[in-house]
């Protein structure tokens, strides 16, 4: 009954992920929720590292933590007066919500256990950045280009939507 250190760390990181996700879900304070997301994102990044996905982990940290989270915090600040920050994160219907989600989760976990997933014999740990970079310009060139279109249009859209002056 030995528990190796990496297993322990996995549980620890998972705990961080799930715990902070729970705060996101259950906190009555939107700022708390937003900040707890940091824990979840960071924890997931940690799990990515465990899974040998160094590039993805980096992207996760950069974009999620550095980008999305900041954006969300901005939005929180812009849409709330500081004084009523405590009462704006209303949650309604906890019990039916919890019941539904618990059943849901039960089914998911059951299915995860039942399913015969594809497994490779050897699990490899190797740096992936170069591979991914090559693929982006090779096999995955088209999605990569489309991503550019997505970002462009998101940019235009975000600007348009937040710039609301009346024309004419």
């Amino acid at each position, binding site marked *: *009954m030995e528990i*190796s250190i*990496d*297993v322990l760390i996995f549980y620890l990181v*998972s705990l961080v992920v*799930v715990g902070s*996700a*729970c705060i*996101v*879900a259950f906190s009555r304070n939107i700022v708390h929720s937003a900040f707890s*997301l940091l824990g979840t994102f960071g924890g*997931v990044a940690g*799990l*990515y590292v465990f*899974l040998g*996905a160094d*590039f*993805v982990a980096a992207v996760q940290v950069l*974009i*999620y933590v550095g*980008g999305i989270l900041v*954006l*969300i915090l*901005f*939005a*929180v600040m*812009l*849409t709330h007066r500081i004084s009523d920050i405590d009462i*704006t994160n*209303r*949650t*309604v*219907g*906890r019990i039916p*919500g919890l019941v*539904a*989600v618990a059943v*849901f*989760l039960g089914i*998911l*976990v059951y299915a*995860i256990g039942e399913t015969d*997933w*594809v*497994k*490779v014999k*050897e*699990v490899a740990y190797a740096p992936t950045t170069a591979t*991914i970079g090559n*693929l982006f310009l090779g096999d*995955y060139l088209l999605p990569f280009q489309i*991503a550019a279109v*997505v970002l462009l249009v*998101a*940019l235009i*859209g*975000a*600007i348009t*939507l937040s710039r*609301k002056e009346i024309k004419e």
Partner: protein
Amino acid sequence: MAAYVAMLTKVGLEHYLVVGGILFALGIYIVLTRRNAISILLGVELILNSAGLNYVAFSHFSTGNVDGQIYTVFIIMLAASEAAIGLAIVLAIYQLFATIDVEATETLKD
């Protein structure tokens, strides 16, 4: 018993999937119960993260190549775009309704 212990002591694909599942369920819980538009967006981010985690886990345990990781990268990218647009909409809502409580913004209904 030993089997269960073994299940706990050796971290495998299923563990990551369960973490992903919990994240997914929490995300669903949030979108069901939260009334604050930004909070609901947080729930959506959790859902996207759970999926991303699944892809990377499968990439690691099931395929041995980086296809899943690339998928996750795209998820993150799209999550960012969606967040940008979503927050822009939230701001617009706030300008028009002076609140972002989705119960207060129900002019469209039967």
